[in-house]
């Protein structure tokens, strides 16, 4: 696109939003970085990974509100400790602010959002529209997910869509990006340059086939992988060694998911109610034996991060600290996985 024209658009949209944490943020569309050889997107997240730095991503829980400051306040908790922020898309099949809009808000400040797309709620027409919209808002990363079933959430009576599955979704994003056309073949001028991720859950059956599924996802075009919660390190290590053996770590970046459990009661609830979370007994024992279970949960999470970093083939870690977002920065700090590197923060910029 014409550079001068783009600059003008940016200026028009510039406005100041209220102060958050005594910090004035400039509200503007996140600017794309210059194109770089060997890079797919023009976003910061891909650069961190390709640079070989150990990346940290964290999940933001979209609010049940129209107050955008709630989004900014949550994101600000990660400042200087996180490279990219995942905006969940109706996680657990519950209604929240849409991931497209959360990412748009984040991108306007300059954050590097990862837009999650779940196949549960939208068909191929809606998803392609969202991808173009995301491109227009300088959102550079997407995470293609199947999504939890509607029965898991607060609207079990809803119609499940699942027009696509995650692999079809990756195929679709890749087609739009690389061929510059919709599925129908109609041309897209200026297709979105998306860095595509997906998830894998190596801890649930069919465990032996999960590696084949991962291979299929990468063959479909996944550039990075964020896994489901990893609490079982031996299982993760086994899975990663198979991944390395198959040469898959050469083709995609791996960010195992870790989380902080608030108490053994929460852990039990997650185990029984959230589909696909495997928590080994040793974790329960540690939590139950601790005086302050919440602290212990965070300590476990910190140790998991350190362990993850040592595994061959891993490029980063993905933190899902639902309702404990305020502890993410401290846990990253304590784990020292960044090794002194300081991820981009709007506080340095403005």
């Amino acid at each position: 696109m014409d550079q001068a024209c783009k600059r003008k658009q940016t200026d028009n949209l510039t406005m100041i939003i209220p102060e958050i944490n005594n910090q004035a943020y400039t509200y503007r569309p996140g600017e794309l970085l210059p194109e770089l050889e060997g890079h797919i997107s023009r976003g910061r997240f891909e650069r961190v990974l390709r640079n070989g730095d150990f990346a940290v991503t964290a999940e933001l829980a979209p609010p049940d509100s129209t107050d955008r400051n709630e989004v900014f306040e949550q994101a600000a908790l990660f400042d200087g400790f996180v490279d990219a922020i995942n905006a969940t898309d109706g996680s657990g099949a519950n209604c929240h602010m849409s991931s497209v809009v959360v990412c748009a808000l984040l991108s306007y400040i300059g954050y590097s959002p990862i837009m999650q797309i779940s196949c549960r709620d939208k068909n191929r027409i809606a998803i392609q529209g969202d991808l173009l919209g995301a491109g227009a808002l300088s959102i550079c990363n997407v995470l293609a997910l199947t999504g939890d079933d509607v029965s898991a959430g607060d609207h079990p009576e809803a119609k499940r869509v699942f027009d696509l599955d995650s692999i079809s979704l990756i195929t679709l994003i890749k087609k739009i990006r690389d061929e510059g056309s919709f599925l129908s073949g109609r041309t897209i001028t200026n297709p979105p340059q998306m860095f595509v991720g997906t998830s894998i859950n190596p801890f649930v059956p069919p465990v032996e086939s999960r590696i084949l599924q991962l291979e299929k996802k990468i063959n479909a075009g996944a550039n990075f992988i964020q896994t489901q919660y990893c609490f079982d390190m031996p299982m993760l290590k086994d899975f990663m060694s198979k991944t390395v053996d198959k040469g898959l770590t050469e083709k995609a970046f791996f960010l195992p998911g870790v989380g902080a459990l608030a108490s053994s009661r929460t852990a039990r609830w997650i185990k029984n109610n959230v589909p696909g979370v495997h928590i080994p007994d040793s974790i329960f024992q540690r939590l139950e034996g601790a005086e302050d279970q919440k602290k212990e949960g965070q300590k476990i999470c910190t140790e998991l991060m350190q362990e993850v970093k040592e595994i061959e083939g891993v490029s980063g870690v993905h933190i899902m600290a639902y309702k404990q977002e305020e502890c993410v920065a401290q846990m990253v700090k304590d784990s020292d996985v960044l090794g002194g590197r300081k991820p981009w923060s709007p506080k340095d910029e403005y």
Partner: protein
Amino acid sequence: MYRARLFASRHARAYEVIYNATSPVILSTLRVINKITKGKLDRPITWFEKIIKGFLFDCQMCGNCVLSSTGMACPMNCPKTLRNGPCGGVREDGNCEVKPEMKCVWVEAWSGSAKMKDNLAIQEIQFAVNHTHQGSSAWIRLAKENKQII
């Protein structure tokens, strides 16, 4: 039928042999019938296919048949109609996240595929279903398109 469907993926190798032997015959017969009747028998043939595949595989007549690439387990029985592998919600006993009383279709599919000679077919990417084919006969379509049953 659920029991027949489990039987199919558990005996995927035998089904594969039968499939490979019968599919060219079915398709060439359909081609001849189609030439003679000019599509007048499409409805009874579709009905016939629905009965047979319905009994054997709980076929949902999506019209995009991929049975031989999914270990003889029909992916349309997955409540999320996933066509490329299981979701992340499979229960510890291998049952479905959505229907706890049912084996996950993809647990069946991967184990069925492992028994088959062409055990790499399951690794082919199957793009999402073409919904315009819903309710139509996959056999007739393949016969008309001069393709093999896949």
